[in-house]
């Protein structure tokens, strides 16, 4: 399978070599008769209901059109193909066509691929090639802010399901000739168009090559985007931590592209996959960059704090109540004791049950339509929570711990990261119930080890903490420096052009 560069070749001309291989042997080249050619293609395709053939016979032109009526724009066929053909007086009929995108195809396999893309195949009597004309129709959702990545300030547009629109949104923001877009067609049956987008003057070519190698190795029937794509290119799929950044926001995508990262888009999904990323990049929100330095840094730090709360708090509670009651201050211990006194379960079961209940409520809330989802939240959160405490099944403290933990886990600006933190706390809870603080500490050390070892596209995932780089840590990791301080790009993506800011704050003298 090959990769085509934008500008060098037309995306139309590509075929996925894989998907045509089995057919290439029994199909021959086109003949001079238009009727025979279309028959040949119809035989190859089988008789699909929406495959239409139209014959025309004008003064100069005589031939047939072949297209899928569901994915072409019939108005444009009339305007740009049939009318010019009927009115032309030129000898070379195809010169009359007014479609923007057209190409001669001599190979039936390629012709079928083009047909699938929504092209109209034009066969002229006496010619052994067909002309593929781009008159695809688009069904566009309007560009809206993605519901799961809302920001307070900044742009409110989001990617949609159409690849071309998405690339347009990126090009609109990043008007650099260095912006490279490379297409690959994936999925033997689905023929999904996938775009690899990067800034060639910044992104490290080795990383680009590596990602292309991974993408080109994909060979499967269906490309279910973005989940399958992510699974196929991620370094370690069994790690709880996502090693790619999923975003539906153009501003977030281009900020990452400008940091030397590579974006991966599949047609049919509004989600863009960005690689390589670090653990900390998943905690950066576009809001940080629109906020001023001090509030931006504060909320950034708050997110890391909530990460710690989300993974540690239930474990800490279980360890304290089960092993280390001395760490509680005297005034607090009585209150907590009063709560757990009447609970009939050991703390691990109490907390596990409550955590599971919260997860169930969350899952139910996601699936249900918004008005019912809210009801579920109220019934689940308030009524069940209160009833559980007054019935004595769980202590008040447990409900507080579980609720704070759940809320903290949703703070992560990446949905995948938020799921990851919610999952990590379960093993930590079990460890804490077995060995108290020791178990919890072992768990944390194991997670730290795993994070240090993890790679995203071969680059360290836990940078700039491991490998340690203080400069990056203070610039855009734990705190957010003002934009004029970001003189260089972060090193984790190994950009070939490091400088990013060149004295913007050295204002021109009056």
């Amino acid at each position: 399978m090959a990769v085509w560069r934008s500008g060098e070749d037309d995306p139309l001309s590509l075929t996925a070599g894989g998907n045509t291989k089995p057919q290439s042997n029994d199909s021959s080249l086109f003949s001079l008769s238009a009727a025979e050619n279309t028959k040949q293609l119809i035989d190859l395709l089988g008789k699909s209901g929406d495959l239409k053939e139209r014959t025309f016979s004008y003064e100069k032109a005589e031939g047939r059109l072949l297209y899928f009526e569901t994915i072409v724009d019939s108005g444009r066929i009339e305007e740009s193909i049939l009318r010019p053909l009927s009115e032309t007086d030129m000898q070379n009929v195809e010169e009359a066509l007014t479609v923007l995108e057209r190409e001669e195809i001599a190979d039936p396999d390629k012709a079928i691929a083009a047909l699938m893309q929504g092209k109209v195949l034009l066969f002229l009597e006496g010619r052994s090639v067909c002309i593929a004309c781009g008159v695809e129709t688009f069904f566009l959702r309007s560009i809206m802010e993605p519901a799961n990545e809302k920001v307070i300030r900044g742009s409110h547009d989001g990617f949609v399901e159409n690849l071309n629109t998405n690339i347009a949104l990126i090009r609109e923001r990043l008007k650099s000739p260095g912006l490279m877009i490379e297409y690959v067609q994936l999925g033997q049956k689905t023929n999904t168009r996938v775009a690899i987008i990067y800034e060639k003057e910044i992104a490290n070519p080795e990383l680009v090559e590596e990602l292309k190698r991974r993408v080109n190795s994909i060979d499967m029937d269906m490309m279910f985007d973005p989940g399958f794509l992510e699974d196929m290119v991620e370094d370690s799929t069994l790690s709880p931590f996502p090693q790619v950044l999923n975003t539906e926001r153009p501003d977030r995508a281009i900020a990452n592209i400008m940091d030397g990262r590579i974006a991966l888009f599949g047609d049919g999904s509004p989600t863009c996959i960005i690689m390589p990323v670090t653990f900390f990049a998943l905690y950066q929100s576009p809001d940080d960059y629109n906020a001023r330095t001090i509030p931006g840094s504060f909320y950034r730090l708050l997110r890391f704090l909530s990460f710690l709360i989300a993974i540690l708090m239930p474990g800490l509670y279980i360890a304290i109540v089960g092993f280390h009651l001395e760490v509680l201050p005297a005034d607090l211990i009585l209150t907590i004791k009063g709560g757990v006194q009447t609970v009939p379960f050991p703390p691990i079961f109490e907390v596990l049950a409550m955590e599971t209940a919260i997860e169930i409520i969350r899952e139910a809330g996601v699936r249900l339509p918004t008005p019912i989802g809210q009801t579920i939240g109220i019934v689940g959160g308030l009524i069940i929570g209160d009833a559980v405490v007054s019935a004595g099944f769980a202590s008040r403290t447990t409900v507080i711990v579980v609720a704070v933990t759940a809320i903290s886990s949703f703070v992560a600006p990446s949905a995948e990261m938020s799921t990851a933190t919610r999952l990590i706390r379960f093993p930590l809870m079990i460890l804490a119930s077995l060995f108290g603080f020791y178990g919890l500490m072992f768990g944390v050390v194991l997670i730290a080890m795993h994070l240090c070892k993890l790679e995203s596209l071969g680059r360290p995932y836990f940078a700039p903490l491991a490998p340690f780089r203080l400069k990056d840590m203070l610039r855009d990791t734990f705190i957010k420096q003002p934009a004029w301080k970001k003189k260089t790009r972060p090193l984790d993506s190994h950009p070939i052009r490091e400088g990013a800011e060149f004295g913007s704050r050295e204002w021109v003298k009056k």
Partner: protein
Amino acid sequence: MKKWIGLGLSCLLLAGCWDERQLKERSIIFGAAIDAPSKEEIAFTVAIPEPGNEQKPASTKQVISATGRTVRESTRKIDRKASAVVEIGKMRVLLISKESIQHDIYPLLDDLYRNARSPLNAKIIITEGKAEPFFRNEIEGEPLYSTYYHTLIESAEDSTMVPNTNLQRFASPLFDKSDGEAAMAPLITFNKEEKMAEVKGTALFNDRRIAGELSVAETTVLLLMNDEKGKDATLTFPMGKEENMTIRIEKMKRKMKLHMPKDGPASVDLSYQLSYRVTDYPPGHLEEQKVVKKVNKKISDEIKQSMDKTMDKIKEAESDILGIGLSMSAKDPDRFKQLKWENAYPELNVKIHVKAEIIESGITF
């Protein structure tokens, strides 16, 4: 096969459960009392608190006593009576009756110093009379007795009425034998009419037994002498006929000069430089330099006198609270050994110089 799966699962899921101490299965105690009329008989009393809720504040649920030959034996006997195992880890006050420490306090504390979970920040309080009734008697408006005693002592510490001590600080003078450092602990008494406990002063120790008592005012002076002023310290002195002045010590500087000549007795010069604030002085006129001078002189004399008196008292009790012996042994260990501190201390010549200065006479806050 089934056996192995069961074994493997229990190894995984039950590991560490022998270390488990579930909060709900333990009786937390906040206060304990020890009465030891004789060496063979140690009565240990614990007060088990009951958690409160919105309607009802936390209160003392049970008071359980048991007598054994050691403290540990007594606690085991308490476990026989209590609904759950008694957890001593959060104990905040330990009340010991004055009678129990006539000979040796250490056997009563040994268990606490051995136990890894023992609360080193618990306050040691000496009681006038038996210690057990301090938890049995009702205290008006204070349902949780142990917390009441704890806050009572803590606030007294803040106002320099009793020494700031706890299990850990108490230990070092106990373990150091004959080296010139003595322990002290607050002393409280119970007022049955008022249903209240009251801080009475300080118990002075000589080595491991009680050797004397100081009143609250004397304790304040002693703590000032030892440079251990709490958050604030107030003293009241007579100023001539029927007039008194209350001052608050603001800043204080102590200088200790040791004289240890090769021949002849050792002596100590203690000079104090302190600044104070007048909080109560009806005659007033403190804006006049002449009056201020007079008052300063008078106060300096008064402080010096009370310090002298207190010094005499602790010398009499053979309790070297100021740690003079410790400083001397640090300065000249050989000479210190020759001195035979137990004998030398009561005879020690201590000269005290005080220079007090008014810094504020107006509004106090």
